[in-house]
């Protein structure tokens, strides 16, 4: 991997996608927030309606372009647009929501090409206050979806937590690529799939 890499942050409204990108971006992040008219869904005042964007340069010199997707299912039309060309996805889950495992299914299914290729990581927030479901429950639910990706707790307000998620994601992608190459593939299993345009 070298040059510029595109990564996507996905997850339900209020899961922390905008916060995560703001926590690590080395440029002033671009956001498209609007007044939240649905406080029954989430008590936030504002919500992302198109995308977030930030950048961070790794110690290796690679620049990560970070895109955040709006979380509400009505913005599903934006998801494939933002996922096009992405090398990997961070799926953020808010454990305080009514059905976090259902959220997991929704977003893993929406970005299935990346998840099946092992180019995804799941970060679970608010586990201190809401310990259920456990990380094991997430791993088990992912197994029922035929997806094996790292699941880790995360407080996306903390820069180190977000960097830890990205580091895990990049390690996961590199390991997946190495395995694919060893098995005679191109070393880029994500973009062999037609479901994510290069």
């Amino acid at each position, binding site marked *: 991997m070298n040059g510029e890499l595109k990564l996507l942050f996905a997850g339900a409204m209020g899961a922390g996608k905008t916060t995560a990108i703001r926590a690590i971006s080395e440029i002033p992040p671009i956001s498209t927030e*609007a*007044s939240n*008219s*649905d406080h029954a869904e989430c008590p936030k005042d504002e919500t992302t*309606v*198109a995308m977030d964007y930030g950048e961070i340069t790794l110690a290796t010199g690679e620049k990560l372009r970070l895109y955040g997707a709006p979380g509400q299912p009505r*913005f599903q039309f934006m998801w494939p647009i933002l996922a096009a060309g992405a090398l990997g996805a961070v799926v953020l889950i808010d454990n305080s929501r009514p059905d976090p495992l259902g959220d997991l299914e929704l977003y893993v299914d929406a970005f299935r090409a990346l998840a099946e290729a092992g180019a995804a990581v799941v970060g679970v927030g608010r586990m201190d206050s809401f310990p259920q479901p456990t990380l094991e429950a997430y791993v088990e639910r992912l197994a029922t979806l035929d997806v094996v990706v790292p699941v880790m707790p995360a407080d996306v307000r903390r820069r180190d937590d977000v960097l830890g998620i990205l580091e895990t994601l990049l390690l996961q992608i590199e390991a997946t690529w190495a395995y694919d190459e060893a098995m005679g593939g191109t070393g880029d299993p994500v973009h062999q799939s037609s479901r994510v345009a290069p």
Partner: protein
Amino acid sequence: MSTRVMPQELVAAFDDEIRRLHARVAGVIGCVLATTDGRRVSAVVDNEADPQRVAAMVGSIVALGETIGREVMIGRTQFVAVSAVGGMVLLQRVPARRDLLVVGTLARRNTNLGILLHETGIAAEAAGRILDEWLGRDQPPA
């Protein structure tokens, strides 16, 4: 304001404005009023387009257009236009005390762009006045 608790009289007033816009411009085949976060408030659409999906897109595109305007420092975005082979879409924010609504107008290709801009603007201002009047009253608990 949550659209889940938006009073019927407010929605009815918006419906009237959207219907008037749809009726008074030849070539207009759809009008959608949406919250800035993409929820449908009122819509008249003649073709098969799904008004809720369109409402979500109107919210996203207006936000993106305004973000681009800020990024390239060209001042406040007045409207966003989509020109396609078979027609055009104009999108703009509803001017009001609070940035809560956006309006989108779908028109056939041969529609006069100037008239479409003017009439969409008039409808947006009317919706803004309706919203401001409502915001000025004692609001029911959300």
